[in-house]
């Protein structure tokens, strides 16, 4: 019945040694009906800042359009791009502005700041934000994801290890959630490159 589980979906981000990884499932569905299996919920703002948004799909799309608007205006006015923590703060403000009629989205922001240090942030649908140095997540299987992440995450993972860890955590939880799954996409962000990989999961 909950609006946040109408479309389903999960996003997760983890920090490693001078790198971050962000991933989401690929399902787009309306209630019990799955309509697409190529619908990522992670979006790139630039090579160092990614945002994953879970929740009601129409609000994901609307909020993303608003974020792009503000990102572009900031870039034109300030002649530089938003850093991940500035972006996270802006996102939080955007959500709180709709405090009494919110966007049904729970985002996760992952990026590298100017010193190539990992930055992770998640927030609830009205903008209460939390930064973490291990992992952040949101979605319909969030309780399960908390379990797998606590179990598998450890500090200072190299990019390849981080990829393995985040993938295993995500897949284990997706498989037990009816509203998430149908594949996953993982982006690993390092100071020099972004590696994106698609994962094949149980197609149910």
């Amino acid at each position, binding site marked *: 019945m909950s609006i946040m589980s109408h479309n389903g979906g999960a996003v997760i981000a983890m920090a490693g040694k001078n790198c971050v990884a962000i991933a989401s499932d690929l399902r787009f569905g309306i209630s019990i009906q799955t309509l697409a299996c190529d619908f990522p919920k992670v979006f790139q703002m630039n090579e160092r800042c990614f945002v994953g948004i879970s929740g009601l799909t129409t609000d994901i799309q609307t909020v993303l359009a608003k974020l*792009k608007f503000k990102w572009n*205006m900031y870039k034109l006015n300030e002649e530089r791009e938003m850093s991940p923590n500035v972006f996270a703060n802006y996102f939080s403000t955007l959500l709180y502005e709709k405090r009494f009629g919110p966007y049904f989205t729970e985002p996760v922001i992952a990026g590298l700041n100017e010193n190539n240090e990992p930055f992770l942030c998640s927030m609830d649908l009205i903008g209460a934000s939390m930064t973490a140095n291990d992992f952040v997540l949101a979605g319909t299987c969030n309780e399960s994801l908390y379990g797998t992440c606590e179990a598998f995450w450890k500090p200072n993972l190299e990019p390849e290890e981080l990829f393995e860890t985040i993938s295993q955590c995500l897949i284990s939880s997706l498989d037990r959630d009816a509203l998430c799954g149908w594949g996953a996409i993982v982006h690993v962000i390092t100071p020099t490159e972004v590696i994106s990989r698609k994962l094949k999961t149980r197609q149910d």
Partner: protein
Amino acid sequence: MARRYDSRTTIFSPEGRLYQVEYAIEAISHASSAVGILTKEGVVLAAEKKITSKLVEVSSKTEKMYQLADHLACAVAGITADANILINFSRVSSQQYLHKYQQPIPIEQLVQQVCDWKQYYTQIGGLRPFGVAFLYAGYDDYFKFQLYQSDPSGTYGGWKATAIGANNQSAQSTLKQEYRDDMSLDDALKLAIKVLSKTIDSTDLNANKLEIGTLTLDPVKGPRFQIFNENRINDLVQQCDIKSKRDDDDDDEDRNLLRSSGMTTK
């Protein structure tokens, strides 16, 4: 006689003129000049920088040219403070269009929106017009590269080559003589420098007095606006000077002439 009818924007004079608008246009002819040239490879915008004191702390990369969107840029002549308002309006307007239609704003649409606003200030409210003229350079999928000019009355037009600001008539006549439809971007850059060298009052041109930008289409990244840095401008000025000096020389310099016209800029 004119004095009775020129203090308010919202009234016509007996001869059917709007004096405030004309005075605004006059204000721009005292501003430093800007030139725009359209080619199939891109649009060149070049402008004269007002000589600034060494004490000025530069806050923005450019003084006369501004990027309005990924595919749009403008050069300004006139009152800077007025220009800043309209530039911000253009930027917000472009993003609103992108938000609504998920597509970059067609250049003419943006020019019309700014001009509608400029016209508003010539008719309503008793506020003075904006004392700014713009040259807009842009690329869209409908008409490819385009160059537009707008003035304080809100009139705009599409151009192949045009100039605004001080000495714009002499700039326009030079452009009329030398512009060719099939010019390359390099040719246009050299022509822009040539035109500015005639309209600027100083004896020598260098990067301190010039601002140059090009709007081109990268096959992968899409339209982009680039401001030339000091070295690039100085190189360009040097190449143009070589060419114009050799133009004046005798025929035994023919070989050198051929060499310089075949040279490409960086």
